[in-house]
């Protein structure tokens, strides 16, 4: 699993690097400063962070053999993950309404593909967790094979950490990005 995560680091790394290289190169709006809603995204980031906490607790109880508490916390992970995805869907549709699509400009291109790929990772994680929650409920996920959950948890934490990086790079660093110098000339 660690090897796979190494692989995934390269995957996200390349996308994030693309974003950073292309930062502030959009030739037309909407620019990040006009469209990003940091308070709302902070909430969804918090939700995702909380899901990691739930993950830790879930693993703890499964290892302890407390089936019901374990199931509950894994379900909490699923729920929080879904809330996060919901936030993302709302954000995407709002951006589209405000005129930012992947085709609009290079910010749209890099933003949607990067966060979209992350969203797909979260979705896979949610499905995986749901599967494990069902296993836990049925009693097939026991302390002796808690490694299954631990590996899924590793994945979950990884996706969470990637989001922290994305949040920093897109929302915090680029929040004030406007048009690049000379963009007006191109439209003249």
């Amino acid at each position, binding site marked *: *699993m660690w*090897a*796979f995560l*190494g*692989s*995934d680091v*390269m*995957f996200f790394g*390349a*996308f994030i690097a*693309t974003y950073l*290289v*292309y930062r502030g*190169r*959009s*030739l037309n709006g909407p620019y990040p400063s006009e469209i990003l809603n940091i308070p709302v995204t902070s909430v969804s980031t918090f939700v995702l962070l909380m899901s990691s906490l739930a993950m830790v607790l879930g693993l703890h109880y499964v290892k302890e053999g407390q089936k019901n508490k374990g199931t509950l916390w894994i379900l909490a992970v699923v729920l929080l993950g879904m809330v996060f995805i919901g936030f993302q869907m709302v954000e995407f549709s709002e951006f589209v309404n405000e005129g930012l699509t*992947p*085709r609009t*400009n*290079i910010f*749209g*291109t*890099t933003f*949607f*593909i990067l966060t979209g*790929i992350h969203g797909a990772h979260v979705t896979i994680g949610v499905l995986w967790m749901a*599967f*494990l929650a069902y*296993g836990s409920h*049925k*009693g*097939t*996920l026991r302390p002796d*094979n808690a*490694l*299954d*959950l*631990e*590996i*899924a948890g590793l994945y979950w934490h990884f996706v969470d950490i990637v989001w922290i990086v994305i949040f920093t790079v897109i929302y915090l660093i680029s929040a004030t990005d406007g048009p690049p110098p000379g963009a007006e000339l191109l439209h003249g």
Partner: protein
Amino acid sequence: MTTNSLTFPRFIPRPKSDTGIWSWIGTVDHKRIGTLYGLTAFMWFIVGGIEALMIRVQLAQAESTLIGPETFNQLFTMHGTTMVFLVIMPLSAAFFNWLIPLQIGARDVAFPRLNALSYWVFLAGGLILNFSWITGNAPNGGWFGYAPNSGATFNPGLGMTYWIVGLNILGVASIAAGLNFIVTIINMRAPGMTMFKMPVFTWMTLVTSVLLVLAMPVLAVAGIQLQTDRVYGTHFFNSLGGGDPVMWQHIFWLFGHPEVYILILPAMGIVSEVLPTFARKPLFGYPFVIFAGIVIGFMGWFVWSHHMFTVGLGPAANSAFAISTMLIAVPTGVKIFNWIGTLWGGNLKLNTAMLFSISFIAMFTIGGLSGVMHASPPTDAQQQDTYFIVAHFHYVLVGGALLGIFSGIYFWWPKFTGWFLNEKLGLANWALMMIGFNLQFAPQHWLGLDGMPRRIYTYAENMGWENSNLAASIGGFVLGLGILVFMFNVLYSKMNKKIAPADPWDGRTLEWSTSSPPPPHDFDVIPQVQYRDDFWFKKYPETVAEYYGHGDDHAVPSGAQFDDEPVNAIPTVSGGAEDHGHGDDGHGGGHAIHLPDKSYYPFILGVGISILGIGFLTHFSVFLVGAPFFIWGLLGWSLEPVNDPA
């Protein structure tokens, strides 16, 4: 998940028979998967070779009109893509599959079903890529797919989409295989085999696998970005939308240069096994060869921009990458010198396998030296995108990787099949390949220096390039004849079987300790490892002191991972396979002979993945066809126990 009480409706019974086509489709045996890899890759090798010969026919004379530019562009694109992704990589994978468990004294790889999935996905990727020929839409943007020439504006057909989808599917196969071999090598070595007692081929496989796992996602990113540009109108590489085509080159070569080492390191591993065996003495400077391999694998990540010296990155970037590129020549040189050191003072049995390995050193050296020439940006300004570069990398990939692979084929063939390949035909095979290869590619150095660019489908009569091109084309056919002799050799030797014993070459490593071909469970008893080249030193205990500088009596009991001293007492715990949660848990380190049962699910999942891939090429409705296979494969796999209750 290892869940025995969860059940999943089975539409098909589990494969049980050991013969017939269904036994192959359901196989999880690393040896059978290795054979499948080898046969499939060889088939693509013939396809790629025919593409190469067509290119050579077109270029044999000036102003030739035999093949138009459109077909020519498709040919060189597919030749490059095929030879890299469908030939050299999977041929290496065939050796990984066959040899890694045998060399480390294991009964299978860590995740046998994942291994089967890798193969089926690889097969699907190759078929999708080559299906483009049938539709007349073969990719035509070069194996390097430079944007914007590969984008929808300038390349509106489906060709480059085939290329992206094909490569991304192959990437899945490579990442899965890479993960599998990393885990196998780290966790499943026989008791006593510390990292520094591993055979060099195993080491090079490990380095290659790490590179695969880290490099293929980068290619996937490049592919996804190009695909969204092509299909959804994003602007990653579209300069009109604020993107930059140079970005494609950075991402592609960030994958592409490690890829070069993915291609060559396995061959280096093979040569490092063949030379000591037939020199009848241990590899010279084992730790240095290993470290050189690791350093090459590491430094391969810091040289990508030497493919881009003429892109205009500025003098500072060019200087930095010139230096890092030259530095990588040092560990490469160390390897070459150590191989010569291995030959030196040996008792060389010059059979076919050995000749291929020695030729590898000779030819790879030429490729390395010409590499230094264009590591220097000022000279590269004249050589970049000319036939000099073509000559260079063919000396590395044919003179290096392919000769190494042929050496491996002749060397391990008796182990794989139980019979020998004919040595006289082998000699003819070797001689024709060497003559043809040098006749084909040596003149191309000269062509490049004489100003002939790459990827041109024709050239004028007054350029002075005809003779060299004609020589190269003749050489191509001689090389092809050498390959035909090889195929004839296989048939001839199969009909006139000369049975091979378990240890035909007086070998050094564990694979020679089991029968030829090995039983399904590889080893009746999991070997206990005391020495590097353990099998050899147990056959010739009197040589232990000579090699280690002291006898067994000085040996210290030790189980440290990186210890390379011989040990007396074998630590009891081997670090055998751990049950990883994917459900594809390998069997244990060898307490009882207990092999994973066959399974169809890797095949079904592979079918699902490839139909989903086809969906990108055709219409999204195809996803609806692929998805059920995908989900069926995934759930079936997860819920199917590794072994049915006996």
